């Protein structure tokens, strides 16, 4: 996603009431994260499961929350998603970078890039691929999901 759109997306989510953003950085969404850091509205955790835990605490305090991470972090987090987020029906937005989407990405991302969509389907986490031309609709969709009490996932492809 373009820099400008990533920054707009951050501001848009804030305006929609998604005030708490916690996660582990990913270059795929570095401008999104930078926008949050500039405004002091983002929290960097040491690992993805920790980020989910913090966001769950915020969600239990009735605040809309988003967790961002690479897809390697999604793989780390499967048990936390199934035994915490889904078990207790905690509404969270996940924003996950799709490393390994292009064949020429670094080798450690290839396998997880291949199976990422299947993992999301298997664990039953509804997802949409967010792009430069549909990001507003995706954000609104995600907000609707968490307002209805469900978690969901927005995926950003790494196209560079």
């Amino acid at each position, binding site marked *: 996603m373009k820099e400008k759109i990533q920054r707009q997306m951050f501001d848009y989510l804030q305006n929609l009431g998604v005030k708490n953003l916690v996660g582990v950085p990913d270059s795929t969404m570095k401008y999104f994260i930078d926008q949050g850091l500039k405004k002091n509205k983002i929290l960097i*955790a040491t690992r993805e499961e920790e980020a989910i835990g*913090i966001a*769950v*605490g915020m*969600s*239990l305090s009735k605040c809309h929350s988003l967790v961002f991470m690479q897809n390697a972090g999604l793989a780390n987090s499967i048990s936390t998603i199934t*035994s915490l987020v889904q078990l*207790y029906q905690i509404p969270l937005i996940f924003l996950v970078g799709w490393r390994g989407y292009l064949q020429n990405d670094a080798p450690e991302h290839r396998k997880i890039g291949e199976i990422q969509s299947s993992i999301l389907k298997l664990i039953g986490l509804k997802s949409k691929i967010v792009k430069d031309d549909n990001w507003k609709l995706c954000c609104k969709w995600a907000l609707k999901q968490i307002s209805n009490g469900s978690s969901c996932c927005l995926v950003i492809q790494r196209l560079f």
Partner: protein
Amino acid sequence: MNRKEAIELITRKIGNELIISANGYISRDLFSINDKTTNFYMIGSMGLASSIGLGIAIKNPKKRIYVFDGDGNILMNLGSLTTIGTLKPKNLIHLVFDNGSHESTGGQPTCSNSISIAKIAKAANLKVFQAENESQFEKILVKIKKLLGPIMIVVKIKNSKEASGRVSLKPLDIKKRFTSK
């Protein structure tokens, strides 16, 4: 002091404050000793009690949040201490009931027998206390009443053969009654 005695002691002292309790015997004991709607019992997701507590503490600066953790649990998420120590929530009190073992899976040893969790927490800028027995624990609980966090109390406990039953509430009900507070 065993875990049940330690949990009995602290729940008598803290009343209706919010408690996030770790999975395994800690949640089971708390549920059997003093079930309240202000208790959030974790069933799975081992290691994350302190992180959930941190999220709640950030969003509820006027309430005190107690995390009931175990040594095996916090050792799975030591990074949490660095995040807590950086954000310095004044209202977070992190208790680690330390028996040096993973008791609910059969008593396998943890590293807390050779590495001090209290020292790690101190290095992460938490205000740290350690209780070896009931009277020390009681004194610490008096001391921290007016003290600003983040605070950690490592409570050394003995293993006991007595195990409380499982938390019989449904996870969704645990959440609903907790979030209505």
